[in-house]
């Protein structure tokens, strides 16, 4: 259903994504892993068209969406939802409104401004929130929620779009392990229950192993691995994450190393001061 052909993105001469070609034939949970700066975010953002493509094609059901403009581009965006590391919700509005924002791509702007949502739409938004277990928070402001809850609101907004594809850019990088697990479970459930396609950038190997049907490894803008998670040997991981001496399995795990904890403690103490 989705195919990337020779997709490339230059930033002022630096190649963030370099001639990437990939096919996604059927729904599944795809994880993209790689070091910081490998080009994972840029790849997802190009698919959603938040970042323009320098060269190459993005074919969705045979049509190149990489060159769409205006209303057509927005129509594509509304079919391809995005979930961000920092949730990117509107913090001062309530949760239900944030979910309803998922419909903005299909709405005339005036109707949206006057908040003309039909009862059916509101019911659907609440049903989605309920499915993600946060219907009771619907009337609260988004900013009043915990990080894990906010990420679930973001997923609800994505579902509201009724998307063909959900792109998730490090959805759990800002969450503590418990919330991270809830969010990943949610994404996985959506993918399997609805048969949607989910492509997620992940920053730890073990998350990728646990949730993905297919893992893509990127390095310096190029795809260096594409296969099943059980094919991810330590050697391959080393290839993806580079041969730098500091690499070890633990550094890419969700478990928090001791010194990082002290840092975080220190930071919070300072900030609280």
């Amino acid at each position, binding site marked *: 259903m989705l195919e990337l052909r020779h997709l490339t993105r230059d930033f002022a001469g630096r190649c963030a994504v370099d001639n990437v070609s990939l096919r996604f034939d059927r729904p599944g949970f795809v994880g993209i892993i790689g070091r910081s700066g490998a080009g994972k975010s840029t790849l997802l953002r190009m698919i959603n068209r938040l970042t323009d493509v320098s060269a190459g094609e993005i074919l969705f059901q045979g049509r190149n969406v990489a060159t769409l403009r205006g209303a057509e581009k927005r129509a594509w965006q509304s079919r391809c939802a995005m979930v961000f590391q920092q949730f990117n919700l*509107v913090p001062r509005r309530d949760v239900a409104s944030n979910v309803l924002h998922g419909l903005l791509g299909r709405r005339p702007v005036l109707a949206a401004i006057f908040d003309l949502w039909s009862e059916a739409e509101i019911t659907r938004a609440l049903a989605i929130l309920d499915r993600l277990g946060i219907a009771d928070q619907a009337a609260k402001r988004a900013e009043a929620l915990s990080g894990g809850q906010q990420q679930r609101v973001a997923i609800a907004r994505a579902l509201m779009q009724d998307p063909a594809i959900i792109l998730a850019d490090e959805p759990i990088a800002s969450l503590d392990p418990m919330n991270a697990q809830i969010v990943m479970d949610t994404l996985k459930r959506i993918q399997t229950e609805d048969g949607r396609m989910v492509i997620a950038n992940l920053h730890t190997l073990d998350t990728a192993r646990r949730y993905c049907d297919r893992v893509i490894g990127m390095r310096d803008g190029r795809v260096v691995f594409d296969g099943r998670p059980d094919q991810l040997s330590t050697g391959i991981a080393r290839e993806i994450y580079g041969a730098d001496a500091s690499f070890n399995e633990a550094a890419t795990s969700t478990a928090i190393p001791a010194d990082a904890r002290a840092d975080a403690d220190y930071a919070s103490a300072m900030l609280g001061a």
Partner: protein
Amino acid sequence: MSAAALSPTAEYLALVRRRRVYGGLLLVLFIVLMASGWRTADARNAGGFLDGIAHILDFPIEILSEAARDWRNLPGYLRQYLPSLIETLNIAAVSTLLGGLIAAVLAVLSARALAPLPWLVVPIRRGMDVMRAMPEIVIALVLIFLLGGGPVPAMIAITLHTAGALGKLFSEVAENADLKPVEGLASVGAGWLARIWFAVAPQVAPNWSSYALLRFEINIRASAILGFVGAGGIGYDLRTTLQWGQGRYDQVVAIFALLFLTIVLVDHLSDRARARLVQGGHAA
């Protein structure tokens, strides 16, 4: 003391000496500027400071004693000048509203991350600088000649200045707005207006309205003063009575009391409203 400490000590001592020299020079410069400035002003003035200071209360006393004598007239005058006061307030309100609306549009168009047409950013900013730099009274005086006296020249003049002044403040706030929500809405396919409305407006609203309230306060003063040069409102009454002199000082006092009380009241209310707005914004 270890050898290593010698160097930080010497370094710091050098820093202190340098700082004292600069600080001293700056202080001397400031004192010289102030002293010579006051002396120049004093010399170029008709009356000297020392001679005048003894008489500083003469005029207020003249006014107040007459008002005290005719205090019975005051309530009547207060009622008589109320419509002028309302006109002054209306001028301030309309120009704050219109100026604020223009400023909001200009601010969004000139905030780098939000501007739909990036090439417009710099021209709009320069334009706002010019609007801001132009004293209201200058525009008003020119307009009075084109349109005649009355509230309209004052309104246009204050609106223009307000648009420039608020535009700059607004765009600073807009520039600092968090772009994550904007990106979030962009990813669902929302258009530019929807992104501004849903992702930017809620963030900037508290600060914008707080700035607008402050402007309203300032504009009341400005509109009273423009009346002073012939642009309607209570300032006009104040000038005609004040210039007439003896015999109308009771009216001067009445107008003055009205104006002053209004300014203090609005000031007080808007202070409280602003504190709540901005606090609400942070606390939430």
